[in-house]
């Protein structure tokens, strides 16, 4: 049975006041149980797309939808259906891992969770038990990333948006992180990831969108990419050797 669209970008366009076109009629959708990777170099428009979904920017044209809700019309309602993790995950260093999780869970509308519920989520993301009640001050980036992922999980939102989630992580931590994403996909979450890591994108995603200079040049499914060299394809697209 065809899965519903959880995240949908309809001709998203963003032109700044200085005339810079950051996003040019970008359309795509992410279904439940799908991982969609937006692949592109710096300035391609990946983060702008995410900012439009989260209501941090208003589109010049087009509409971002989360679970069928128009973000431009009702951003607060739309954001109840999405969990987000940014590339900078410092969180609150004076709070313990559990306290950070508790705050963001309640912010996401989960008011009745108990200490053990938080511990379960932290176990799920692979954080060591002894770190549950430790302040984040002394955490490595990988450990903070795990707490960040726990925050996105605990909200139980149908959509998850991750902005460069594996940047700065060592290979082991990155692999653990991707393993958790697989689990979330299996739970039926629609996951949108922005990355410039071609290998991780191919490894994890069901669909890859190649972006350059604010345009979505191509959308390729896992099946289409099976026999393709994604790196070559990506370079061909951004160098204009292949027509979008």
């Amino acid at each position, binding site marked *: 049975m065809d899965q519903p669209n959880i995240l949908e970008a309809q001709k998203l366009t963003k032109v700044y006041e200085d005339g810079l076109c950051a996003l040019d009629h970008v359309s795509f959708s992410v279904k439940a149980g799908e991982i969609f990777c937006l692949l592109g170099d710096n300035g391609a428009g990946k983060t702008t797309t995410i900012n439009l979904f989260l209501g941090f920017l208003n589109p010049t044209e087009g509409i971002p939808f989360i679970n069928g809700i128009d973000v431009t019309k009702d951003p*607060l309602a739309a954001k*109840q259906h999405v*969990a987000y993790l*940014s590339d900078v995950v*410092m969180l*609150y260093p004076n709070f313990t891992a559990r306290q950070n999780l508790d705050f*963001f869970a309640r912010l996401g509308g989960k008011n009745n969770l108990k200490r053990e519920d938080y511990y379960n989520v932290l176990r799920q993301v692979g954080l060591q038990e002894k770190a549950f009640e430790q302040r984040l001050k002394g955490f490595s980036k990988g450990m903070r990333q795990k707490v960040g992922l726990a925050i996105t999980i605990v909200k139980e939102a149908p959509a998850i948006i991750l902005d460069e989630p594996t940047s700065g992580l060592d290979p082991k931590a990155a692999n653990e992180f991707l393993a958790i994403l697989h689990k979330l996909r299996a739970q039926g979450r629609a996951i949108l990831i922005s990355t410039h890591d071609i290998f991780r994108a191919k490894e994890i995603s069901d669909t890859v969108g190649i972006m350059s200079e604010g345009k979505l040049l191509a959308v390729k499914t896992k099946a289409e990419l099976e026999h393709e060299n994604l790196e070559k394809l990506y370079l061909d697209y951004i160098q204009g050797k292949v027509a979008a």
Partner: protein
Amino acid sequence: MWKMIAEKELRDHLQSTRFLVAAGVSMLLLVMSIWMGITHYKARASQYEQGVQMMLDLASQQSNWMTVTNSAWRKPDAMEILSNGVNSDIGRYSDIGSGRDVRLVRSEYSDDPMLAAFQFLDPTFVILIVLSLIAVLFTYNSINGEKESGTLKLVFANGISKAEYIIGKLIGSWFAILAPVLISFLIGALLIILMGVDLNGSGWGRYGFFFLASVLYATCFMLLGVFVSAMTHRSSVSFLVLLVIWICAVLIVPKAATMLAGRAMPVPTVDEIESRLTSYNTQARIEFFNDMTKRSRARFKSMADMKPEERQPAIAAFQTENEAKRKEMEQGITDYSARIYEDYYNQKSRQELLAFSLAKISPASQFQLATMKLGGTDVGMKKRYEDAMKQYKVQYTDYVQKKGGGGFQMRVSTGRGSTTGSMTGPPQQKIDISEMPKFKDPDYSFGTSVTGALFDLGLLALFNVFAFVAAFVVFLRYDMR
């Protein structure tokens, strides 16, 4: 939602080392300054008791009211504990007597120049400097710091509005700043009780208002911190901007306003006034002596041919005439002194009005002026006491006149004190000082102090409202990315 943000903000502050250190230091300094204030007040109270008692003991040993060296002492007010203000700048007592100008002498700073150099560490000073700095330290990165750490985007990826967030943020930060102030004031109140300071209902009321002024002042800087943090995108920039604002508001504006007012409206110094009065006084007395000498020669010449029984009434008439002339001379000096001082105080109050109006653009000046009013140690303190002492002088000299202490005293300065002699007045038995009028300190009630401070407190409150609106509006336009 705002409650959740406020709770998070408060907890974040309470769990931070920065808070523990800053709150600990401010509480320690505040409590220590209250303790020092109490010790200082008790020492002053004891000094006051001794001074008054010594003066009464000396007076009771005299046999002529003319030889009594009376003085009026300023009774210490327990509220000096909180705001020392001009208390240490002005003299502790003034000599009272016919022919003596009311002049408060022997200030604490004149007795102890080291104290003048480093000033008094009272709670007002601690709050003025330390608490405002701590409020800035707590909030300089409240918004842009969250942006730098990525938590702002993480928070706003949830269904929370900017208005709810900023309200929660401000309330949480406010409670974090309120906590050390409240605890310090409670410990301070306990110290006041335990150390046996007799603070009446009015005093406690003023203590409460002092707390209110402190909270309003700290809130000003907290709101400024959030405002600047929401205006900038980097915490290093906001810290620098706030440091400049703090230096200007706390250190520059109050002093610059006083200097500007001094330039715009020059007022003669007290020394200049005193010098003019001394010359007038000396001239009037020389003229009086010359006139008296001239008249006495003429009188003695005319009495040479008198019979002995006729001389006594003539001498008595001469004495009456002399007394009238002396009174006329004294009145002349008093009138001249009153005129010159009235003019001085008028000029001074115009200058002060300008200086304070300029200084009041800074919340630090608003706070300082309000607390000085609450403590009764404002710039009007000297005049209040001098006016009360002038009234007392009239009362006392009338009493001495009635007691037969007429005549005039001649004070010969020996550099380290004075010797007093009398030209007239019959020798008597030891005087009874039980009915001698006592100096009563000028009335400075709860109503007077609070009414005086109300305008500055109102300005502080207004500043808070502006800073709140500014922080709120700026954050509503804040770019979350």
